[in-house]
């Protein structure tokens, strides 16, 4: 056969391709967990503690149990006969943590009993009718107080409420002993320094607030001894593993499904008690059950993020060269360790090297239990905290030395020719080229113009400041040696009859647009139309294996697995194509995919259509020697290293002199996430990250009162950015590919969240610098800023 008149197919990688996910989402046709209905389905409601710390003296479920339509009421102690303590995903010591409290409650919102009823209204009524009597214990809400001897303790065996302590320093860690190298160099650096910066800073507690609350539907089929769990999760495969273990089942007896998931931001990584409870109660009740979280429950029980207190010291020479860093970090992890709780703050220290050559570092970390909701990953997970501490300190140093914030950073950058670069914390940055990124940001933002604008505004009596930050972060988490759940990702690629392609990915998206970017990659790989490709995800019965989506790993690890599987499938297609072209004596190695055909490179007349070859693969007559029919290949991709994207953010903030209200006037982000598959989607990821990072800087904070009562447990008091609170963002990028995966892509999901937070606070501090202000705690509450202005008599 000779060439057909097919249209030339444009290359899609690098193009702003519209998302393939969108038609169902914009028409209300997507299926989120709460949209799932099963015949005979019952509904769960949890009775939750409204005190922060106490012993459960009694639970009276009788009134609830007697209500019409109530199938079952069960207490934590009763449930413990069916469900043991929950597993965690880190190697740190952890106290027992039951899905439903058995004897003691340790934070407001901890469940104490569960109702199973015919509908959710009845379930709520019944949960309200449960009476619980507690012997209240003193609550500990301040981690520094919690560590004091004599403070109330949450868990036996964890003296002074300390969960994890770690220390490293000097010129690095000795890999043999895992002990710090000679530490005296740190003290020496601080003794010899020309200038010191020292600051206590809080990276406050945040609520992730994915717009879709959590939810789970569980169906245990007794006859099949088979459990299906639909959950709003970022990682259905981890859910399958853990729920199987908790239920005493094998993974072959459990199907976990992440249907459409309405955002995660890290809080849907953890496998929660409600997921285990739903599974167990479906088995107990003999019916499918559903639980949907309401927003108040989300504030109380879905993991929080951040909450790190940092005592940061920086040593430098008078020319701005940084000579040492000391960081003592206290992480308030809340009442329990859940899946990755204890690991998150360790990332803070790992990344506190930032983009700088730091000769010596000392890092101390203490993770402390308090009577609050457990913490876990929140967009950036440990890195925003570290970069915030570092970038605030560097900014303070610049102010101390009266240096331009851009120039002090430039002076300390790791030079481009030193990559791969080994940091003091033992990481190896894959690639980087920081100066061009800084230069581009300064140019895009018109930094000199901004300074002039600021000065002109000040001359008019306005309070205006500019801020800059430069971050590097760690993405594409892998290899398995550093990720407790496994650092690989899995993908499968099947070429169907007719030449269509179905691919599966274990990177389970919840807004990231993988169905589009992955299809773009396959379309280019096979040179077939985008419409001919389906990307499946989120169902363990369809996607053989997987880890999940977190740590900006979809593209760098999941995408790499996809390309690896596609490579194998492509090789087989070429073998079938060669077999079809026996008359022309074609070798598979000479073949390429081009415009819907498989052809000899440079000789389009020697070709078969992709569809013809696919059809042949399923009816291979004669079957080429040594081959199996069909084209369905899979790949586990294990990265050799993480990736280290970076970027420069610049902002301008104005503060109302009379009210202290801050307004973000300008936000520029120049990011480098390596090669970009879909710039439209990358822009969207950066926008969203910026909004959350700005949210932390300006608005958001989970606040507890002294008794451990949360006072920001609704959208009425937890301030999140709305459209009118944000300016139009100005984006640009540089491209420094990573060598650690074949795509050269580094990951971008969290970038915006990491650079913007210190950037905006730096701008606010700059605004108030004429008032003698050197640091402001987040968020930039109007009253807090107003007080800083008042303390200086309202005059700058």
């Amino acid at each position, binding site marked *: 056969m000779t060439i057909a008149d097919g249209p030339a197919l444009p290359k899609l990688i690098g193009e702003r391709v519209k998302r393939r*996910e969108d038609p169902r989402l914009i*028409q209300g046709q997507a299926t989120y967990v709460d*949209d799932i209905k099963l015949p005979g389905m019952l509904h769960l409601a949890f009775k939750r503690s409204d005190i922060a710390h106490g012993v459960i003296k009694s639970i009276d479920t009788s009134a609830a149990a007697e209500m019409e339509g109530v199938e079952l009421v069960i207490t934590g102690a009763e449930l413990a006969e069916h469900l043991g303590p929950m597993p965690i995903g880190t190697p740190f010591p952890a106290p027992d943590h039951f899905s439903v409290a058995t004897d003691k409650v340790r934070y407001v919102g901890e469940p104490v009993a569960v109702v199973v009823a015919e509908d959710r209204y009845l379930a709520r009524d019944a949960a309200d009718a449960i009476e619980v009597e507690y012997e209240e214990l003193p609550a500990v809400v301040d981690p520094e107080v919690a560590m004091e001897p004599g403070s109330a303790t949450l868990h036996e065996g964890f003296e002074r409420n300390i969960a994890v302590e770690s220390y490293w320093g000097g010129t690095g860690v000795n890999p043999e002993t895992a002990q710090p190298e000679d530490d005296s160099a740190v003290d020496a650096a601080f003794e010899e320094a020309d200038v010191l910066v020292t600051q206590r800073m809080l990276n406050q507690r945040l609520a992730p607030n994915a717009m879709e609350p959590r939810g789970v539907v569980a169906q245990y089929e007794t006859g099949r001894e088979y459990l299906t769990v639909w959950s709003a999760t970022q990682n259905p495969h981890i859910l399958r593993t853990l729920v199987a273990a908790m239920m005493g089942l094998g993974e072959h007896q459990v199907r976990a499904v992440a249907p459409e998931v309405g955002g995660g931001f890290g809080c849907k990584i953890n496998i929660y008690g409600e997921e285990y409870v739903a599974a167990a109660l479906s088995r107990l009740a003999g019916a499918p059950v559903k639980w949907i979280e309401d*927003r108040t429950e989300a504030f109380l029980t879905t993991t929080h993020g951040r909450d790190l207190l940092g005592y940061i010291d920086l040593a430098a020479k008078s020319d701005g060269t940084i000579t040492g860093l000391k960081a003592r970090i206290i992480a308030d992890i809340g009442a329990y360790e859940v899946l990755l709780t204890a690991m998150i703050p360790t990332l803070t220290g790992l990344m506190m090297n930032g983009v700088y050559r730091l000769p010596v570092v000392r890092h101390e970390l203490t993770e402390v239990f308090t009577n609050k909701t457990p913490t876990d990953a929140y967009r950036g997970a440990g890195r925003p905290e570290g970069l915030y501490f570092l970038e605030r300190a560097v900014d303070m140093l610049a102010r101390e030395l009266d240096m331009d914030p851009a120039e002090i950073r430039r002076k300390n950058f790791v030079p481009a020719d030193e990559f791969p670069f080994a940091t003091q914390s033992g990481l190896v940055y894959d690639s980087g080229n920081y100066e061009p990124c800084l230069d581009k940001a300064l140019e895009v933002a018109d930094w000199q113009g901004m300074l002039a604008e600021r000065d002109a505004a000040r001359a008019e009596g306005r309070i205006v400041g500019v801020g800059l930050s430069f971050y590097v972060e760690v993405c594409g988490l892998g290899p398995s040696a550093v990720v407790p759940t496994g650092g690989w990702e899995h993908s499968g690629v099947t070429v169907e009859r007719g030449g269509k392609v179905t691919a599966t990915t274990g990177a389970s998206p919840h807004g990231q647009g993988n169905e589009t970017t992955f299809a773009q990659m396959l379309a280019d790989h096979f040179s077939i139309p985008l419409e001919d490709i389906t990307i499946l995800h989120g169902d363990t019965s369809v996607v053989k294996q997987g880890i999940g989506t977190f740590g900006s790993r979809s593209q760098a690890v999941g995408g790499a697995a996809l390309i690896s599987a596609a490579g194998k499938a492509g090789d087989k297609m070429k073998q079938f194509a060669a077999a079809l072209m026996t008359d022309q004596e074609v070798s598979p190695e000479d073949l390429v995919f081009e415009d819907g055909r498989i052809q000899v490179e440079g000789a389009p007349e020697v070709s078969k259509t992709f569809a013809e070859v696919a059809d042949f693969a399923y009816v291979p007559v004669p079957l080429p020697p040594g081959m199996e029919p069909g084209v369905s290949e899979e790949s586990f991709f294990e990265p050799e290293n993480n990736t280290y994207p970076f970027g420069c953010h610049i902002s301008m903030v104005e503060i109302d002199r009379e009210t202290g209200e801050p307004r973000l006037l300008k936000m520029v982000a120049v990011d480098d996430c390596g090669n970009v598959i879909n710039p439209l989607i990358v822009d969207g990821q950066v*926008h969203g990250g910026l909004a*959350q990072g700005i949210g932390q800087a300006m608005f958001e904070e989970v606040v507890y009162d002294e008794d451990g009562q949360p006072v920001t447990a609704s959208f009425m008091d937890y301030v*999140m950015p709305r459209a009118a609170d*944000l300016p139009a963002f100005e984006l640009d990028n540089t491209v420094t590919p990573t060598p650690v995966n074949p795509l050269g892509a580094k990951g971008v999901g969290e970038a915006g969240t990491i650079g913007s937070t210190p950037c905006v606070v730096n701008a606010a501090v700059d605004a108030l610098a004429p008032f003698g202000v050197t640091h402001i705690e987040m968020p930039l509450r109007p009253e807090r800023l107003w007080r800083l202005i008042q303390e200086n008599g309202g005059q700058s």
Partner: protein
Amino acid sequence: MSEPVPITINVNGRKRSAMVEARLLLVHFLRESLNLTGTHVGCDTSQCGACTVLIDGHSAKSCTVFAVQADGAEVQTIEGLADGGELHPLQDGFWEEHGLQCGYCTPGMIMSAVNLLENNPAPSEAEIREGISGNLCRCTGYQHIVNAIQHAAERMAQS
């Protein structure tokens, strides 16, 4: 248990009659009774706007309306927005401009935007940002949503 109340609501052009418990929220009537699950619930204090529908042409948070209050009204949900097979300009705008990521806030956001453009067919960027301030989005940083609404406004002005 209170007495069930008979209601008839015209939803997306179809008359729907039912006996409902008085406390049944409109959003649950749409989602549970009519299976119109495109309307979502994102909070319980009437702040997030994910549940926004049009009641007699005006945007409303269907989590803060009892189904009985909508008796006799015309309700339009995201499922009723496309005209036959053709997307509404706002749906098209959200698609073209990448105005959504996880999609959870999107139906409510679009219904709010319908209300906005109805009242102000050529809004400025600031007016758009103000006009959707009853809707929270956690994914997009709103910028592409603003672009999407501008895109739709331009298209609607042309036609």
